[in-house]
């Protein structure tokens, strides 16, 4: 017998309890690659959330029409369509960000978070709950990107959103904006979140 889940739970579980990055370890590629600056991290978080919300809505509306055998292929085509929209939009209005993110905007298509939510939630639940689920997951994803990019930009270039915040004699830790910094920071964040969870349950 399935436990009854409240609507609030649908929304909040994505932020912490089932956080897509820290707990489920999905969508790691864009997480690591684009978090060099807060601006890039935020743009990636919003773009992925947009795609997630739109495709969850559409797929939960179509869930009874899509034949079971070809569902994965149908999901991917729907997701790819929304990614193309997001990509064109960014290229038209924010060409600078679009250039910085490069191939990682089209790579939202194969972001396991989005496909995973369609398979696990939107294809089984009604529109309202699917939108809440997508909003929560999108928010959880964006929050982790924001924290990770804030740490990396602060230590790696001494700035946040391009504004100088560290003192003048601070020498930036170059490694933080290079690939190793991404792996190390995320590893420490995963460890920290495990530690917090552990303390809460004890």
């Amino acid at each position, binding site marked *: 017998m399935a436990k009854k889940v409240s609507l609030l739970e649908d929304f909040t579980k994505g932020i912490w309890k089932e956080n897509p990055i820290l707990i489920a370890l999905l969508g790691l590629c864009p997480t690591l690659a684009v978090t060099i600056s807060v601006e890039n991290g935020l743009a990636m978080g919003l773009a992925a959330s947009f795609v997630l919300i739109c495709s969850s809505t559409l797929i939960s509306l179509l869930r009874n029409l899509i034949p079971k055998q070809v569902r994965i292929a149908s999901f991917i085509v729907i997701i790819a369509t929304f990614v193309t929209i997001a990509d064109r939009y960014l290229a038209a209005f924010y060409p600078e960000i679009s250039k910085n993110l490069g191939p990682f905007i089209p790579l939202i298509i194969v972001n396991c978070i989005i496909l995973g939510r369609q398979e696990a939630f939107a294809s089984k639940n009604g529109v309202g709950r699917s939108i809440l689920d997508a909003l929560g997951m999108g928010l959880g994803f964006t929050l982790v990107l924001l924290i990770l990019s804030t740490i990396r930009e602060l230590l790696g270039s001494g700035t946040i959103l391009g504004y100088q915040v560290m003192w003048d004699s601070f020498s930036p830790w170059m490694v933080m904006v290079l690939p190793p910094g991404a792996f190390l920071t995320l*590893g420490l964040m995963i460890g920290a979140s495990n530690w917090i969870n552990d303390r809460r349950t004890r």
Partner: protein
Amino acid sequence: MELLVIFISAAIVNNFVLTQFLGICPFVGVSKRLDSAISMGMAVTFVMTITAVVTWLIYHLLLVPYNLEILQYVSFILVIASLVQLVEMFIRKVSKPLYDALGIFLPLITTNCAILGLALIAVLREYSFMESLIYGIGAGAGFTLALVIMAGIREELELADVPRHFQGAGITMIIAGSLALAFMGFAGLI
């Protein structure tokens, strides 16, 4: 010479996993044991090489002549998904032992972002047909290299005393960080 540079660049200097962050999911997921890491690396290299060739043909012979570049993402992902399916059927028909060895890893390759990333980057850099082919092989070799090194370290790690909260994903990320640091040493190679 040009082709050799592309190969080395894709395999080592700009390693797909450790410097471009493509294909991290299988890198974390399938690097627990050495033998499955080798199988996965072989399967990915195989699909990458074919993908590089087929997406080049589709982009330059179909999408560009008919001004359909907007369909690039949708068509590439469809091609990759069906290609993986085709490769799976082909291997099952031709070589049963190889199919059993690769088995579960084949379907997973569709959502490996390294494959789609390879196709997109090859288009961005305007590679020729031969260059795309070599780029695909090089990227696959680089992926296999990173995966095998990681699996080797993780097998040793089973005997190590890792702090409880870092077990699993946490320590894997930190090792990947150290490996990425080591691969930065290749930066001046070309």
